[in-house]
């Protein structure tokens, strides 16, 4: 047996007292396609950052090419051939394709003068290694997500990578693009380059990996040859639960839809969307990133006012042309990106919670009514179980799950009728995830209509009474929640 390329032993790492990694070990062989799997928030990202020298582990050992590192620096990691492709790709939108690919290696070569023909040659060579052809003089800001990713991979190759870590590389890719990416990865393997493929999507994990390591809640559960694993085992190890457990059902007979759209559309984003949501329903909505699902949600919330079709709330037609209008109609939206869209990180929990409802918390003289504010804030902290010692703390001091509860509290305090959630449990630990699911189900049971957008198939199956699939801006299919799985997802996707 060859000596491993990289070996992590018993790594622990905590942040602000929260243990992100509790003694994780991982070994990657040269030329191996290794998959690091686990649900969101299980510690995958932290582990990557330990490998690339961004985080120094509290305890544990790192061996690369047989050499032991106590404090691995990012530069040392790069020198050892470890290249990480982050989800944002770390590329420069204002520079050309050629520069983005070649600049890094030119920099490592300590060149002072850049030769454009030389950079173009390097870039061409790098792209040809992965059999891709891109216009070298194009500015990267004009390219698609898939192309940007290819650029990031090419750049890593030019840095003499021995291991390329890909953090959730398929999130924004279409099926075709994923297939193309897999070809690239297999090509890398032929050249003796290892790939650590980080993902939580079962289908992909089996399609590509030779070995699978699963993390759950900061510990590694199992590391096994892919051929010895199956879906059931994988799900069990990722979630700690058996695949089959609970479903959400609701009877909507004799009810009026709380929200109905008729040939709803937004230029360039989605069209002909006719859906109904009944009180008590939790309707799942899924599809690739860029399928139009987020745009649909944001149109319903008035952020991107629709350009065609009609919307009815309790059979009454309304026009949602602004967020204020949507809120007035009691439609609220928990956005996709909690940190940038959902929260005012530096502000207090209290201010975050009252951000949307402050106008209802005034005295007769239209001044802030601190008593009312305290009462409302305490009430919601209590109801949603936000774990904190004071509502005056900045919200950035909270864990992901508690932060998400604060976002929920902000909107639930406005007493909504329709709740749209976009990836509500991304980056949330398992305990808080279950809390949030329970909160959503309880809200629905009280008569709210919920639209739940998610990538997480288990989440959709277990919490939605039906699931809609979106593809290229159209609703491509619908299925009962309990029947929703990988297979139906793919079928509806292609439909």
């Amino acid at each position, binding site marked *: 047996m060859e000596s491993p390329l990289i070996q992590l032993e018993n790594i622990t790492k905590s942040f602000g007292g929260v243990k992100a990694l509790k003694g994780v070990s991982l070994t990657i062989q040269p030329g191996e396609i290794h998959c690091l799997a686990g649900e969101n928030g299980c510690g995958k990202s932290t582990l990557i950052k330990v490998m690339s020298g961004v985080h120094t582990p509290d305890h544990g050992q790192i061996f690369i090419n047989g050499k032991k590192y106590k404090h691995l620096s990012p530069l040392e990691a790069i020198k050892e051939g470890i290249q990480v492709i982050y989800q944002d790709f*770390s590329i420069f939108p204002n520079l050309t394709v050629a520069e983005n690919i070649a600049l890094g290696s030119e920099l490592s070569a300590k060149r002072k003068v850049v030769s454009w023909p030389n950079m173009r040659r390097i870039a061409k060579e790098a792209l040809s290694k992965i059999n891709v052809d891109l216009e070298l003089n194009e500015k990267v800001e004009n390219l698609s997500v898939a192309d940007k990713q290819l650029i990031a991979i090419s750049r890593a190759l030019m840095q003499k990578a021995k291991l390329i870590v890909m953090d959730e590389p398929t999130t924004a890719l279409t099926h075709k693009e994923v297939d193309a990416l897999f070809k690239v990865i297999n090509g890398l393997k032929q050249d003796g380059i290892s790939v650590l493929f980080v993902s939580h999507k079962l289908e992909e994990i089996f399609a590509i990996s030779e070995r699978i390591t699963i993390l759950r809640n900061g510990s590694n559960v199992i590391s096994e040859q892919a051929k010895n694993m199956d879906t059931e085992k994988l799900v069990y190890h990722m979630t700690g639960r058996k695949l089959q457990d609970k479903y959400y059902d609701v009877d909507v007979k004799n009810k009026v839809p709380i929200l109905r759209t008729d040939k709803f559309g937004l230029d360039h984003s989605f*069209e002909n969307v006719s859906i109904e949501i009944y009180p008590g329903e939790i309707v799942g909505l899924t599809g690739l990133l860029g399928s139009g699902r987020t745009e649909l949600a944001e149109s319903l919330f008035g952020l991107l006012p629709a350009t065609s079709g009609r919307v009815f709330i309790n059979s009454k037609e309304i026009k949602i042309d602004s967020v204020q209008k949507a809120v007035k109609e009691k439609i609220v939206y928990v956005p996709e990106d909690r940190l940038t869209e959902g929260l005012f990180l530096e502000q207090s929990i209290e201010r975050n919670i009252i951000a949307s409802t402050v106008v209802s918390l005034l005295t007769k003289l239209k001044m802030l009514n601190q008593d009312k504010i305290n009462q409302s804030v305490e009430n919601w902290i209590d109801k949603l179980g936000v774990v904190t010692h004071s509502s005056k703390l900045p919200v950035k001091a909270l864990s992901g799950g508690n932060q998400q509860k604060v976002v929920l509290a902000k909107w639930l305090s406005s007493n909504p009728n329709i709740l749209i959630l976009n990836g509500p449990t991304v980056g949330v630990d398992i305990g808080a995830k279950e809390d949030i699911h329970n909160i959503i189900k309880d809200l629905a049971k009280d008569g709210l209509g919920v639209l739940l957008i998610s990538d997480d198939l288990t989440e959709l199956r277990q919490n939605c009474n039906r699931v809609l699939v979106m593809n290229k801006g159209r609703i491509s299919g619908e299925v009962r929640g309990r029947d929703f799985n990988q297979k139906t997802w793919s079928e509806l996707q292609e439909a």
Partner: protein
Amino acid sequence: MYNKFFQTTEFYLIVIISLLFLTIGSQNSAFFSINNMFDLIRSGIVPGIFVVCALIVLVSGGIDVSFPAIAAFSMFTTTTILSEAGFNGPIIVPFLIGGAIGFILGIINAVFIALFKLPTLIVTLGTSSLFSGFLLTFIGSSQISNLPTSMLNFSKMQILKFTDETGIVVGLPISVLVTAGIVILVSLLLKYTMIGRSIYAFGGDPASAERVGFSPVFIQFFVYSFVGMLSGIAGIMHTSMMRNSNPVDLMGSELLIIAAVVLGGTRISGGHGTIKGALLGLLLVITIQNSLILMGIPSYWQRFVIGALILIGTGLTAVQVKKTNAKRKSILT
């Protein structure tokens, strides 16, 4: 390729400037006289260096309002030293001293910006006040007119001498070559050197730049010290062209320079901007400044026109950015 050119800010500027030239020329034929054209160029010599300074900083994602203060500090300190020493040597010496002083003052900016990570606008507002306050308090506040001979000779040297219709000899001062040299040098630096490209990369995405292996501290130190040095050189040019050294000269020109660079298509958010555009922006501003009188508009309209120009120019850019953002790639196929 050609289609792209027609969408650039540079193209729009060329159209606007041509229209402006034609309008002014049709109002007053004196506009197209060699004398007036040389006047235009002459008034762009020192600001020409300043726009290069402002451009470099804006591309790196910062904003610098201290370059006039640095220029004034460098020129007045240099001339004070030289005149007290009874200096009689070659012209290169004042340029070296001025450049060196500017370089050091630029380093001071860089310390606050790169090491303490403070916002560039407020740091340079502070240093600008500090530099000019120090200059006027501790070095002197009255003009020096007995400049070293080499500086006076430098101001008299001309290239391209012409005798116009009325028999007056007009010419371009040799300092125009210095500005041209700096412009060419910096263009090459920005396009063909690692540090030049790293300034663009850093301005485009500072976090990515760090991950790829650029050193943000080095980049910012380079940017602010280099710009300081250029400002120092600009100060010496100003002094020798004016044939005296006045410590309160140049102050207050920073905002107009930045406006010219922004009109030239440089984005205040960093990463975008070309020397070509910045120079065209400057040409537009200088033309308006110099030609209002030729068009029969009282000079007190100057500020109003420039203010309106800044608003219209930045407004059009903002609207354009909004449009491109709204014009997402279609998902529907």
